[in-house]
């Protein structure tokens, strides 16, 4: 079905746009057929109404004959044939109405006939414009769609990044453990594999239940726990009501990874990462608020490429939620806190 017919508001806009077009046609009939405005309006009303729908028909022809790929000869022939047939139809409706109204307006039929040549040219022109408009709209739609596809591909690529530093350091831990504690070495291999596999799988999806994202975060922390030992401490406090919330995939785990990389790893004595999630319901809607807090050393050497991960997450949130989602950062004296706020749909 035509997109204008799918939505009553769009349809209303389209019909409103036809008021001036109809007025022009009435004017043409008035000037070239010497019909009074009243006569011209009465004669043209049904024709204009039908014409408004006729001008939606190029949608189907344009879709089956794309400008880029259809042979120009066929393109021209098809549109011309449609234009002639449909315009004649509109003219005939006018003629039919004029005949019907001959009783009320004497001689209106003959005067309408004298207006036909000019009217036909105008009707054809309007129909040609409708074709052009449809091609323009289709072109815009396809370029928008390819833009969205390109952005989706980019987002997927951004999500799929596994931090090489993390990977090689984990492999180094495994290498150390093979002689010190072979059982733990094997365990670490399995933890790392679990994390990588799950991260690849979830990266394919756009949103996932929070519970799955938290499970992934746990797998990541299990690996880091081996590397950092008691330098890394985790306190997690997530409302049970949150766990079914749908969240964008791979947003929380990278935030926790940042807390480890830029926070805990740069503290000589290590520290505690506090992860908390609450589900809020207000009159304006429900939202999920997730905070990750870690200590940091303000005098630590630069860990490089700061903020790239955050910017990446911000872009992903913006493309999905617009301004409804927020990522707030509070860096106090020695404590760094990231707050993620996501709007949630509530099932009634």
């Amino acid at each position, binding site marked *: 079905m035509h997109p204008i017919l799918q939505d009553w508001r769009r349809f209303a806009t389209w019909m409103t746009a036809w008021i001036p077009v109809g007025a022009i046609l009435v004017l043409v009939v008035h000037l070239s057929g010497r019909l009074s405005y009243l006569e011209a309006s009465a004669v043209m009303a049904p024709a204009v109404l039908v014409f408004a729908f006729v001008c939606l028909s190029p949608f189907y022809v344009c879709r089956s004959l794309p400008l880029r790929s259809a042979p120009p000869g066929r393109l021209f022939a098809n549109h011309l044939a449609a234009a002639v047939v449909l315009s004649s139809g509109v003219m005939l409706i006018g003629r039919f109405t004029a005949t019907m109204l001959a009783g009320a307006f004497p001689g209106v039929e003959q005067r309408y006939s004298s207006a036909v040549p000019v009217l036909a040219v105008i009707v054809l022109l309007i129909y040609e414009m409708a074709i052009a408009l449809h091609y323009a709209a289709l072109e815009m739609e396809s370029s928008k769609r390819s833009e969205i596809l390109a952005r989706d591909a980019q987002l997927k690529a951004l999500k799929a990044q596994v931090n090489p530093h993390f990977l*090689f*350091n984990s492999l180094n*831990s495994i290498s*150390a453990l093979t002689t010190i504690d072979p059982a733990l070495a094997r365990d670490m291999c399995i933890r790392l594999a679990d994390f990588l596999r799950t991260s690849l799988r979830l990266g394919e999806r756009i949103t996932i239940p929070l519970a799955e994202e938290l499970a992934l975060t746990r797998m990541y922390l299990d690996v880091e726990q081996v*590397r950092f*030992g008691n330098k890394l401490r985790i306190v997690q406090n997530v409302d049970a009501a949150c766990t079914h919330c749908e969240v964008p995939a791979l947003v929380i785990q990278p935030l926790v990874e940042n807390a480890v990389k830029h926070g805990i790893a*740069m503290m*000589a004595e290590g520290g505690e990462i506090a992860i908390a999630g609450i589900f809020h319901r207000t009159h304006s809607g429900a939202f999920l608020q997730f905070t990750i807090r870690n200590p940091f050393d303000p*005098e630590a050497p630069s860990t490089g490429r700061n903020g790239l991960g955050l910017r990446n997450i911000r872009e992903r949130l913006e493309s999905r939620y617009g301004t409804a989602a927020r990522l707030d950062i509070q860096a106090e004296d020695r404590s760094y806190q990231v707050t993620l706020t996501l709007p949630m749909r509530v099932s009634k």
Partner: protein
Amino acid sequence: MKLRAVMADDEDLARRVMREYLSQEPDIEIVAECANGFEAVKAINETKPNVIFLDVQMPKLDGFEVLELVDSPSAVVFVTAFDQYAMRAFDAAAVDYLLKPFAVERLRSALDRVRARIREARPIGNPHELKQAARAPGDYLERIVVKDGPRVHVIPAGRLDYAEAQDDYVALRSEGGNWLKQQTISSLEDALDPRRFIRVHRSFLVNVERIARIDANTKDTWVAVLNDGTRVPVSRAGYGKFREIVGAE
């Protein structure tokens, strides 16, 4: 001769694998193990080792900053997991490096190079240039580390007022204090963000935010008056650079 070694890595397991490998080498003696940059500087200055195994990313000071702060440059072997720019820098400076995880054979070949280096008494490359080369393009120094007696003082780049060349040293002025560092003013200039620090004169590098005004002095020289009243000479070229940066804003 037994080689005395210091290793610095913040991860316990990383130190343990290195210790295990080095214990198989009869001529190596580990004199200190450090878990952060401060400890490393202290241990190196105290024990004067022949070789340092240095992790690049550590708490307190990174591996390059440690090198800037130690007196007796020994042979250095950097140990890192992954850092494309650092690896390029190591290649250029012909300093050996190990990529985690590494095999014991790879460590042995690094030790061979260390022994050759010590026999030939070749000096190690300039640590400032090494750090500069290891930085990603567009990444500038965010802090300057200086020795303050036995301690280490860290000056965030934004708190540096100006630097003045004094022979082989630069005198750094920050928050009312003066610090001396063995480094050329040109290498400091290269490391700092050129939009924030201007070399207004052959001997002076100034933080743009500290300049209150610039007065004409003679026909071809000017004087920059800083917020605290300090007067810094400005050359013709320095004045041009200042106009370019301030005008561009």
